[in-house]
């Protein structure tokens, strides 16, 4: 059978021209890629940021044309101008940011946009819109404004907008990067259903390894070339190569790999939690050992600096637009103390009040009722200097790189200290120190922040807050949209800062990140503080968490499954290391 997409020696160069239109710089984004995609397949494309995945995808939709080589979509050469609309409608493309691809003010109007462009007759447009809405389960929202939808819903609308053009192939360029875990599940479910029920070929570009486990095939790209190509089992068995490329494995596969390294004879192609548990069970037909689970040693208190600042919310309630019909409660009677030197994780679903909560911590929002106290002093007291407080309680918003504005990195990082009214010398010192802390060398100082890569921009923005030398640093989803290695680096930076005595508050959707790093976790639900305790205490309440719509860390899930089968592992293991330890304790003797 003719492949639905075929590329032969596909090459693409980004050409940078100077003012006189002379070629200044050529960057090869896609390098000699020859691939055949079979109709009906679900293909995942993995690779680090800048590996050429997106550029490759844009070739398939004729948004970019090859510099060298050829691309055929459904048998048509994409470089042939006459087949442009056929190529674009048969290989539809969904992009990362759900907001930036919805054109109309009403969901159904937006879905009709594609067919309208294709000149489809009115009656048929309505049919197609209906079918597309049904296919992604959004019928109930046909008349809604996109502003009222969640991220996952918006992304499903975007997919429906492509479906209405009746494509044979769906290309999704990191469709879940900006979504919360629930939105991610929604979108993936919809895509898998389209693949199975409607036999639409799917090309999914993603950073989330878990999303690729169910794919028929994985293509791994590096520096514009295809590095690996095979089934998920084949790909994830080559863990060393993946690690070396800066990619992560699904948690179960990672754990299996570590255990193999420690000498357990596990098969090399384990992908899911279930498979790992089965493999471990068959490895040890013997009964569970009577031995008590080992207490892990990681619960030693961090050593404390002499004077500890303390930030307290006392019965804080916050209402949005009080006194209007649109009044909504953002926070509901929250009492919470945050201490310098601790690492606090805040988890909860979208809309549970996390963002509202952190904006109270530095006085950006004023409680409708209740008080915010900094070292016992009410921050909304008459004499209290809230601007000075913002230097002590640093707040890093989601996608902080969107707030960069200066010509050079050093100037941008200096913005905070400058507002604090420090001397030139002190400002420069602090800025350089902050850049060093986030791993940006002095070479970056005079570069434009807008020329940096995504991960570097994020770090520069973080430095901008660190330069104010906060005692408590609050971060809202700091790892969103980063690739695995970027994520890891950022978390390492946070742990380093904590070791220097800074209090860290991490708001995150990633249970793994919070479980591995936090000393204490607060769970938010419907504006209320639902739970507050050590990670161990929190993740022991698995059922309650599930009820709220939150998960437990992937490795914890695995050890709990083992525990249920009667093995004497420590069901409280939260990090990869702890899981490896406790399994080895039982399995190797």
């Amino acid at each position, binding site marked *: 059978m003719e492949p639905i997409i075929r590329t032969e020696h596909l090459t693409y160069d980004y050409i940078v021209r100077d003012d006189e239109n002379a070629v200044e710089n050529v960057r090869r984004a896609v390098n000699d890629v020859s691939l055949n995609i079979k109709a009906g397949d679900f293909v995942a494309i993995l690779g680090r940021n800048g590996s050429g995945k997106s550029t490759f995808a844009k070739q398939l939709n004729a948004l970019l044309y090859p510099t060298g080589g050829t691309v055929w979509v459904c048998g048509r050469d994409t470089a042939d101008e006459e087949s442009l609309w056929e190529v674009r409608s048969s290989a539809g493309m969904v992009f990362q940011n759900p907001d*930036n691809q919805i054109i109309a003010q009403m969901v159904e109007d937006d879905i009709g946009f594609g067919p309208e462009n294709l000149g489809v007759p009115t009656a048929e447009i309505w049919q197609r819109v209906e079918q597309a809405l049904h296919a992604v389960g959004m019928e109930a929202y046909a008349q809604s404004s996109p*502003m009222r939808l969640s991220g996952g819903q918006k992304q499903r609308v975007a997919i429906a907008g492509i479906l209405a053009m009746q494509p044979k192939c769906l290309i999704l360029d990191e469709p879940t990067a900006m979504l919360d875990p629930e939105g991610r599940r929604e979108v993936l479910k919809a895509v898998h259903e389209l693949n199975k029920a409607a036999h639409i070929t799917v090309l999914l570009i993603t950073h989330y390894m878990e999303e690729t486990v169910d794919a028929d095939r994985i293509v791994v790209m590096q520096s514009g070339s295809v590095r690996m190509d095979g089934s998920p089992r084949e790909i994830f068995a080559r863990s060393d190569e993946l690690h070396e490329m800066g990619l992560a494995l699904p948690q179960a596969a990672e754990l299996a790999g570590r255990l193999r390294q420690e000498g357990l004879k596990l098969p090399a192609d384990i992908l899911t939690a279930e498979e790992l548990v089965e493999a471990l069970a068959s490895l040890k037909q013997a009964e569970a050992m009577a031995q008590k689970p080992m207490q892990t040693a990681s619960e030693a208190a961090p050593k404390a600096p002499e004077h500890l600042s303390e930030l307290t919310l006392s019965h804080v309630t916050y209402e949005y637009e009080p006194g209007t019909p649109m009044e909504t409660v953002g926070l509901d009677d929250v009492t919470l103390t945050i201490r310098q030197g601790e690492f606090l994780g805040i988890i909860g679903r979208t809309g549970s009040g996390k963002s509202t909560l952190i904006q109270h911590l530095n006085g950006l929002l004023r409680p409708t009722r209740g008080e915010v106290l900094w070292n016992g002093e009410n921050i909304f007291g008459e004499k209290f200097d809230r601007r000075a407080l913002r230097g002590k309680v640093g707040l890093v918003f989601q996608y902080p790189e969107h*707030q960069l504005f200066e010509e050079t990195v050093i100037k941008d990082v200096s913005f905070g200290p400058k507002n604090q009214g420090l001397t030139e010398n002190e400002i420069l010192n602090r800025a350089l120190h902050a850049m060093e802390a986030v791993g940006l060398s002095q070479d970056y100082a005079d570069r434009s922040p807008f020329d940096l890569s995504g991960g570097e921009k994020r770090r520069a923005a973080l430095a901008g807050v660190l330069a104010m030398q906060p005692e408590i640093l609050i971060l809202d989803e700091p790892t969103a949209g980063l690739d695995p290695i970027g994520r890891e680096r950022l978390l390492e930076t946070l742990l380093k800062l904590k070791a220097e005595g800074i209090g860290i508050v991490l708001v995150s959707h990633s249970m793994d990140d919070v479980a591995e790093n936090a000393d204490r976790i607060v769970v938010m639900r419907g504006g209320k503080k639902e739970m507050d305790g050590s990670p161990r205490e929190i993740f022991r309440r698995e059922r309650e968490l599930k009820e709220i719509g939150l998960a437990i860390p992937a490795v914890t899930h695995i050890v709990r499954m083992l525990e249920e089968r009667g093995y004497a592992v420590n069901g409280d293991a939260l990090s990869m290391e702890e899981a490896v330890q406790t399994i080895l304790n039982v399995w190797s003797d």
Partner: protein
Amino acid sequence: MFRDLTLGQYYPVDSVIHRLDARTKLLMTLIHLISLFVARDFLAFGFSAVVLALWIILSKVPFGYIARGIKPILFLLGISIFFNIFWTKGEVIWALGPISVTKEGLIQAAWMVTRLVLLIFGTSLLTYTTSPTQLTAGLEQGLYFLRYIKVPVHEIAMMMTIALRFLPILTQETNKIIMAQKARGADFESGNIVKRAKALVPILVPLFVSAFRRASDLAMAMEARCYHGGDNRTRMKPLKFTRADYLAFSLAVLYFVIVILI
């Protein structure tokens, strides 16, 4: 906070007026506006007010909502009343030192107020009964003939659509950026004008960068969905004149003739 911010102010109920074609309503509003400038005495204004009131009742939009439209121009209204009353020459009714009120002044002011209020009420009725999307479509299809004299009607309508869609998003974004810069100790409240203007740079630069990024994303998404301008495009919701439209339009013309005759 700004989730529901839109240009205009659609009041979503089902009424005869809501169901009228946007082009009809645009044309009727135009007739209404012209009639206000043609009207020469209070009888004509009175007639106009009664007719407008009937339309409003038919539209099922609460009168309070329509009246709300006056709020933003209250200041303007106050100033024009003030100038008209005190600065019009004529028969003096009341005087105190250099200040005097004339009969002509009072009439002029009343004239002015009636005209402005009727104008606002009429246009509010249009925006309350026509969604921005319908309005854009109405303008595009109603003015399509202008294409023959090289006016890019479709492009303008598309720009309006996109502006309507992205205005609330950019408003949200502005709020977020303000918060983020405040968190870095930025001060927007104190200092003189120069200082305050300078304080806007950390807001405006990221806002522009973001707007351009969104624009380029959107352009790509539109291309991916085969957008290629207005030619050979079909419509999901084509506007169609119904009998109600012809009736409404005839009534409007009749009204206009009467206003002229009065």
